[in-house]
């Protein structure tokens, strides 16, 4: 295995190619490599690149992809501009992991499906295209209930993406082809497994995630809730946003984590909120639509209840949040 300590972004991009992987904090990639789940031939260390700043610009917060989660959580600007982000970051993994893990690495974390992460399991279409899915075939309780396909039901892992989805953040990507830069709404970064579960993000070959941009809004309220039985394995989470005008919901976002193959917008739930006066009754009407489009299996009958619980809790937090963010 070849180790490249890139000194510039251009040098990092120049080393991209088949078998090459970018290294942010490297914690997850080292674990997956050790287990034989990932087999990188070339590691491109991004530690020295100038992607570690957090800047408050006009109307937005820009976060470099190599910012450590601990630094993100402790940054006063984040607390002022996007307290939701701080709340979510403070619950990701463990404090020691957050000292090393990066924003970019967390966003591109591979799924925690136990049978994907077990290289001795021969039936995982995510690792071995066309090999089936041992979770489905052996009726394990693991797996997502939204956005699944016959090939794969692995739940996406990023919690940061759930929060950033509610915050309407954008990601900036840089391609090795002519150093072309593009921006995407964060939720468009993720793709459903379909028949190609080996692909989890809409990244082109060698494309590098360089930063995340969070717009600032004084009119929006946010809420977050999660259920976890271990710090490394949140079962379900929800981040919500409600934009209110005279107590009317003019815009809403409800993002589910842990239960879907990608950070999941509960669109029917959002639709139920829009145009109505905010109230406890409205929260219940919206919660009743959380499971629209869900595909629970007999082996995961406990998961729909988790989805409604986290959305209800997150919406209540948003309703009760009186101290809205001001510029």
């Amino acid at each position, binding site marked *: 295995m070849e180790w490249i*300590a890139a000194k510039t972004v251009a040098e990092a991009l120049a080393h991209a190619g088949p078998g090459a992987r970018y*290294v942010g904090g490297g914690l997850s990639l080292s674990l997956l490599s*050790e287990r034989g789940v990932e087999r990188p031939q070339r590691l491109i260390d991004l530690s020295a690149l100038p992607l570690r700043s957090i800047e408050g610009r006009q109307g937005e917060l820009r976060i470099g992809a190599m910012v450590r989660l601990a630094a993100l959580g402790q940054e006063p600007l984040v607390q002022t501009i996007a307290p939701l982000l701080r709340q979510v970051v403070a619950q990701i993994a463990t*404090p*020691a992991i957050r000292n090393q893990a990066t924003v970019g690495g967390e966003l591109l974390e591979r799924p925690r499906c136990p049978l994907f992460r077990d290289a001795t399991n021969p039936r995982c279409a995510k690792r071995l295209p066309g090999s089936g899915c041992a979770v489905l075939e052996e009726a394990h309780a693991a797996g997502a209930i939204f956005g699944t396909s016959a090939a794969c039901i692995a739940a996406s892992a990023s919690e940061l993406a759930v929060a950033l989805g509610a915050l309407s953040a954008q990601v900036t990507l840089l391609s090795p082809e002519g150093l072309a830069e593009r921006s995407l709404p964060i939720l468009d970064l993720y793709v459903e497994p379909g028949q190609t579960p080996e692909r989890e993000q809409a990244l082109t070959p060698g494309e590098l995630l360089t930063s995340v941009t969070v717009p600032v809004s004084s009119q929006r309220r946010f809420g977050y809730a999660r259920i976890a039985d*271990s710090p490394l394995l949140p079962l379900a989470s929800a981040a919500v946003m409600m934009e209110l005008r005279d107590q009317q919901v003019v815009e809403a976002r409800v993002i589910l984590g842990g239960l879907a193959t990608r950070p999941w917008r509960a669109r029917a739930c959002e639709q139920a909120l829009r145009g109505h006066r905010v109230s406890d009754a409205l929260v219940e009407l919206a919660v009743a639509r959380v499971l629209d489009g869900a595909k629970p299996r007999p082996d995961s009958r406990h998961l729909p209840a988790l989805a409604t619980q986290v959305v209800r809790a997150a919406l209540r937090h948003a309703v009760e949040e009186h101290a809205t963010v001001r510029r």
Partner: protein
Amino acid sequence: MTDRPEDGELSRRQFLVASAVSAALAKTASAQPGLPPSAALSPARPIPREGELLLHWTVNGQPQQVVIDPQASLMEVLRESLGLTSVRRGCEDGSCGSCTVLVDGKRIPSCLLWAALCQGKAITTVEGLSPDGELSPIQAAFIRHKASDCGFCTPGQVVAAHAILSEPWGSDEDSIQQSLCGQQCACGRRPQIAAAIAAVRSQRG
């Protein structure tokens, strides 16, 4: 190189253990048996072979050069090349905290950290907390509060507790519990560990 257990070969970690065992044997026997160590500390000028890396770093205050396999974790290099077995091989997925060390003063699970990411860094294990043989305040507090039982997790707990004292946590019980997330003690000494941290914190005001 392959890590797949069904191949029936030594996995890389098993290989490293074998290397460490053979390196230990080499100290007592004159002949070097079996496999060469994948990472070796040399007093002179270590020369990396193809595919290896030369690290310049500081371990417990000592500047060193060490040749490593780019796939080696910091935990493996500290244990098997430098003999610092206070750094435990625990869960190896970052959740137990028995391998916690400081990298430039910040606690990190060394089992998941590629040593190659530690170029130019200062590494501190529990040995580095009492360089002159004097117990650091947190070590003394661990003894006073009987915060250790079997001792397996203790070095990682002490390093983590040392780091927690310089992190921005609140002083209430809930904050101390949150700060210890990822530090497990199978003997159930968590309350005593938390008490030791609280005691040092209150001494410092």
